[in-house]
């Protein structure tokens, strides 16, 4: 692969770089948890590390926090190499998974904990004022003297956030902060986290395995696999121009068809699918004729019709789920297998709705398919 040349993670578009990973690797015994990470984080940015568990995203975060030292490479915060700088000396704060709030302290004492560690000491009135502001920021006024165990999960989440932002860190690290919340609360907190980030202008670095969370909140998403960065880009970049099959599968839902490249011209590849049918698609990155590839087509880009021509795929409707503005069809092609189609309401009014068992034709615009490396 084009390792070394491919470093868009270094490009922050001219903005000030607040933190940087330079060739950072971390080894735990025989396990390489982080493998040559290169990444620059711009001031005020909201960046997410996205990947399955064990992909090294938490290790990357812990190296920024100061809980782990890199085996190789350099970690920089605000221009200084901090490889061996102890966590308590870094201008960085973390919102822990399951919050790690101090059970023996009240809400206000938890939030004020970081401020009380400052030397020279801050005046008590100043601490009280900052704590009050932080409580207001997370809408927990009046909860100062509550005990942590008297708070709901969502409230504890807010306390954890307030405890971190009250210190005005240069980097705020969030380790799966919403994982313990139920779906509705998670949605609300996503919006709130974004609002708070914009209001305070603090750089947020989020670790998550939830693609929706990463895509909806972040300016840039860094997709990781097996200790390596697979691709860094804006959510839209990753959605429209995934670098390979892994990234496409991680960002949004999509249908994959296996095939072999028949020919390439000007970024457009013709691929012979396993049933012998030829389809064309955009080759996001270079592919060679004869290469085994994956054709990715998003469900919303596939259309169904009872009357389309011979060059389309003949499918049978297996299942239909009405979602309001969309209807989701699970369809089956005899040799290509099952795939999803998302039909907008407007198309349904035109032709359809279809029923389970209907035999239809499925097709898509030539530009809608992406030809991707199999990795």
């Amino acid at each position, binding site marked *: 692969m084009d390792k070394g040349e491919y470093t868009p993670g270094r490009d922050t578009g001219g903005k000030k770089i607040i933190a940087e990973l330079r060739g950072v690797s971390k080894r735990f015994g025989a396990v390489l948890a982080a493998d040559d990470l290169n990444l620059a984080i711009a001031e005020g940015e909201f960046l997410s590390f996205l990947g399955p568990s064990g992909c090294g995203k938490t290790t990357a975060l812990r190296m920024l*926090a100061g809980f782990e030292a890199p085996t190789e490479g350099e970690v920089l915060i605000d221009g200084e190499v901090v490889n061996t700088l102890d966590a*308590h000396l870094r201008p960085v*704060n973390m919102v822990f998974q399951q919050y790690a709030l101090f059970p*023996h302290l009240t809400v206000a004492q938890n939030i004020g904990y*970081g401020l009380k*560690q400052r030397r020279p000491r801050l005046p008590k009135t100043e601490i009280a004022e900052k704590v009050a502001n932080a409580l207001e920021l997370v809408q927990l006024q009046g909860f100062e003297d509550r005990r942590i165990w008297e708070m709901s999960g969502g409230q504890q989440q807010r306390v954890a956030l307030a405890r971190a932002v009250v210190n005005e860190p240069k980097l705020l690290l969030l380790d799966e902060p919403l994982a313990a919340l139920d779906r509705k609360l998670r949605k609300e907190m996503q919006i709130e986290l974004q609002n708070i980030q914009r209001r305070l202008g603090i750089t947020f670095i989020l670790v998550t395995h939830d693609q929706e969370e990463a895509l909806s909140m972040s300016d840039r998403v860094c997709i990781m696999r097996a200790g390596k960065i697979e691709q860094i880009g804006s959510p839209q970049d990753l959605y429209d121009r995934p670098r390979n099959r892994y990234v496409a599968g991680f960002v949004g839902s999509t249908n994959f068809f296996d095939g072999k490249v028949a020919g390439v011209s000007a970024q457009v590849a013709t691929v012979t699918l396993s049933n012998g049918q030829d389809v064309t698609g955009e080759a996001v990155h270079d592919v060679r004729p004869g290469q085994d590839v994956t054709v990715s087509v998003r469900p919303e880009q596939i259309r169904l019709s009872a009357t389309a021509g011979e060059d389309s795929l003949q499918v049978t409707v297996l299942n239909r789920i009405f979602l309001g503005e969309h209807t989701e069809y699970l369809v089956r092609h005899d040799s290509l297998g099952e795939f999803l189609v998302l039909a907008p309401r407007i198309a349904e009014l035109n032709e359809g709705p279809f029923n389970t068992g209907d035999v239809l034709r499925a097709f898509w615009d030539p530009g809608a398919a992406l030809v991707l490396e199999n990795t």
Partner: protein
Amino acid sequence: MTQRTRNLLLLAPAGTWFLVMLIVPLTVVLVFSFGERGASGGYVPAFTLEQYANLPARWAAFKNTLILAPVGTLAALVIAYPLAYYLAVLASPKWKTMLLVLVIVPFWTSILIRSYAWIFLLGGRGIPALLAMIGIEDVRLINTPFAVLVGIVYGYLPLMVFPIFVSLDRLDKRLLEASSDLGATRIRTFLQVTLPLSLPGIATGSLLVFILLMGEYLIPALLGGGKVFFVGNALVDLFLQSRNWAFGSAVAATLVIIMLISVTLYMRLISKLGAQREDVSLM
């Protein structure tokens, strides 16, 4: 079966035990303590405060108990805490189990045998002989308060280690990371997070050891050699040697009352520390 009958049935075994083995004997002791010694020992019913007026005669036993029990508890705490901390926080899982077993192993042998071992170690041909070899002559260890202190700390250390170990082991280690992340040094993290959260373990261990030490008999008898004796030794002497049951009962009742008062005060202190952990955390 109604809820009420079921509750009574559940409580019956322990309740009966409690009544027969604790309430009844304590009542007997209390009644005897107001009586008189018979001409040939034993007990003659009476109502007099004479036995209580006589308590200063056993002042030495009370003094030894009231000094050595708290000092022994404190010494056990000071030795047990770092050990429990190492076992719970620092030791690798592989070593943890083995070291925990090593802490329990002495319990497999009778305290009597272990105390005899100390008689030899602290006796003339033990540690003092070694000290004499490097020129420190005439050190006397056996039959001193120090020997008794060594014996009780040795004997009761596991009872202090385990509750503290449990409270430290249960401590969420991410709290320590959170504290460090928020700018606290290791020492401040210990004082502000680890110590307050292990307070329940300290309280339990100290109470266990303290209560047992207040009633200790064997170790002062063996390592104190009749020179350093506890209230427990005085009681054996009064009941079995001088057969003065009335006076023995008065001494026993006084010990129970002292224990009740000190345990209550201690519990108050602990819950106060618990409620105002803000102050503890800012030490």
